[in-house]
């Protein structure tokens, strides 16, 4: 009975994190972007500095009519937001936030699990792009696919470097094997992983697939109401997952200068929050990369860097043994 209760509590905690953290990131984005652009951002909803703006947005989305275009492939059009969103919920289950068993479910091949499931999420965008029967959406879907194919490889390679260093592919095992000098050792891999992850989430400066000023939000052009909100939510859940994963793989997760035993989860959250801030910062400060620049960056910069990181990891690993 305690076993069942334990599982239920863990799943509930993951679910609450899945609902709350993306909203926190979204609200932070509103405020940080506004202040970086010399504005105030939302100030009225909820009273104090517009903290309830996203709740109000959610209510607005829920009230809107759910339109399916007449020419669309109805079932796939309606299924796509779920396919885009659910993988991130699954990934959150496997991310450890503290030492010991402070993880939703410890997965033996954790690194491969998270990368595989995150890749499935992109299928949602492709399904949406195709099923909308809209040329902008189709272009968005095509760009999404091209981007995923280009950036999946450096991401896997960078994660493989950490797996080599730790001698395990389990996320919990990686954190158990972590030492502080891994951060400078794996820093190149970390940058590659984070950049490739941004591209997989289609966040600026890699937002060519949604490019609102030229293909009108790409795959999501035809979506309204709650389904559109689900796509937005999946973007922010993706930010949380990417920052959490980068924290766990490259920044030592719950390890910190002090208090790692009791306050480990706080270190994880702090590092994740700093990375999420960087994600928002990049959106405000970098122009969008063109499609050929996107591909060039992946194939001629990120993949060689990731391979060099793997070589370095191998050499150091052999030397210290």
């Amino acid at each position: 009975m305690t076993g069942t209760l334990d599982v239920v509590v863990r799943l509930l905690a993951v679910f609450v994190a899945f609902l709350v953290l993306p909203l926190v990131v979204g609200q932070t984005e509103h405020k940080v972007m506004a202040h970086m652009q010399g504005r105030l951002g939302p100030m009225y909803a909820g009273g104090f500095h517009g903290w309830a703006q996203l709740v109000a947005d959610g209510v607005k989305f829920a009230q809107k009519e759910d339109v399916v275009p007449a020419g669309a492939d109805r079932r796939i059009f309606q299924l796509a937001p779920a396919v885009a969103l659910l993988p991130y919920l699954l990934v959150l289950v496997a991310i450890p936030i503290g030492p010991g068993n402070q993880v939703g479910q410890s997965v033996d091949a954790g690194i491969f699990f998270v990368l595989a499931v995150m890749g499935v999420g992109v299928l949602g965008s492709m399904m949406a792009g195709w099923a909308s029967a809209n040329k902008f959406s189709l272009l968005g879907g095509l760009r999404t696919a091209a981007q995923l194919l280009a950036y999946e490889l450096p991401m896997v390679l960078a994660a493989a470097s950490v797996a080599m260093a730790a001698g395990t592919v389990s996320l919990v095992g990686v954190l158990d094997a972590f030492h502080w000098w891994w951060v400078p050792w794996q820093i190149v891999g970390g940058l590659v992983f984070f950049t490739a992850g941004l591209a997989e989430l289609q966040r600026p400066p890699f937002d060519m697939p949604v490019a609102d000023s030229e293909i009108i939000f790409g795959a999501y052009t035809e979506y309204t109401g709650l389904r559109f909100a689900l796509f937005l939510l999946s973007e922010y859940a993706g930010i949380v997952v990417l920052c959490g994963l980068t924290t766990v793989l490259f920044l030592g997760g719950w390890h910190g200068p002090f208090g790692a035993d009791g306050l480990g989860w706080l270190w994880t959250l702090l590092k994740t929050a700093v990375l999420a801030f960087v994600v928002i910062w990049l959106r405000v400060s970098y122009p969008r990369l063109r499609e050929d620049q996107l591909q060039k960056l992946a194939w001629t910069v990120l993949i060689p860097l990731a391979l060099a990181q793997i070589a370095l990891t191998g050499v150091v690993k052999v030397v210290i043994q």
Partner: protein
Amino acid sequence: MTLAAAGPGFLSPTGVEIAFLLVGIATLGAALVAVTTKQLVHAALWLVVALGGLAVEYLLLTAEFIAWVQVLIYVGSVVVLLLFGLMLTKAPIGRSPDADSGNRWAALAVAVASAAALVWVVVDAFRTTWIDLDGVVQGSTKVSGQYLFRHWVLPFEALSVLLLAALVGAIVLSRHKDGRAGAAGPADPAGPADPAGPAGPAGSAGGSDSRQNGAR
């Protein structure tokens, strides 16, 4: 000669065995729909269901690592590549009755023959083995890795050489076309994106190879 595994028989199946069977039937059904549906993109999406079902079967056999790699490579790369190709050809929404090569019966014969050969080989090889689900996990990443690099190193290396040859071949083919067409502008969006497509899965396989080489 033993006809079947000793120990647990085929009667009185456990829950895992029933789940295995049900997932297998669902996978087979999805695969059948994938080859018989008239809607091209639906076929690709049913393929996702079939490949995902296979991953679940691996999970039920405790081979966790194989299951996630299956999802990563097949669903994450191969199907995305397939969908990319379909979208490039403007895959229409709804039925495409002209997308039939007329080789239905020949294809069926080849499929049945190859399925029969595979089933026969697998049954002949493994009918006396039994996976103990309650004991030590027999398909964990560690065990799979040890098997791969202790007993199957030569096939593994031969496969990686094959994939490397495919990768080099893809690069050579795409280069050749570029040279003949003259200097394609660096800003030509089709240029860099084009070799990116076919090199994707082969590249990822080659990459994992170099990683495992380093890990040894």
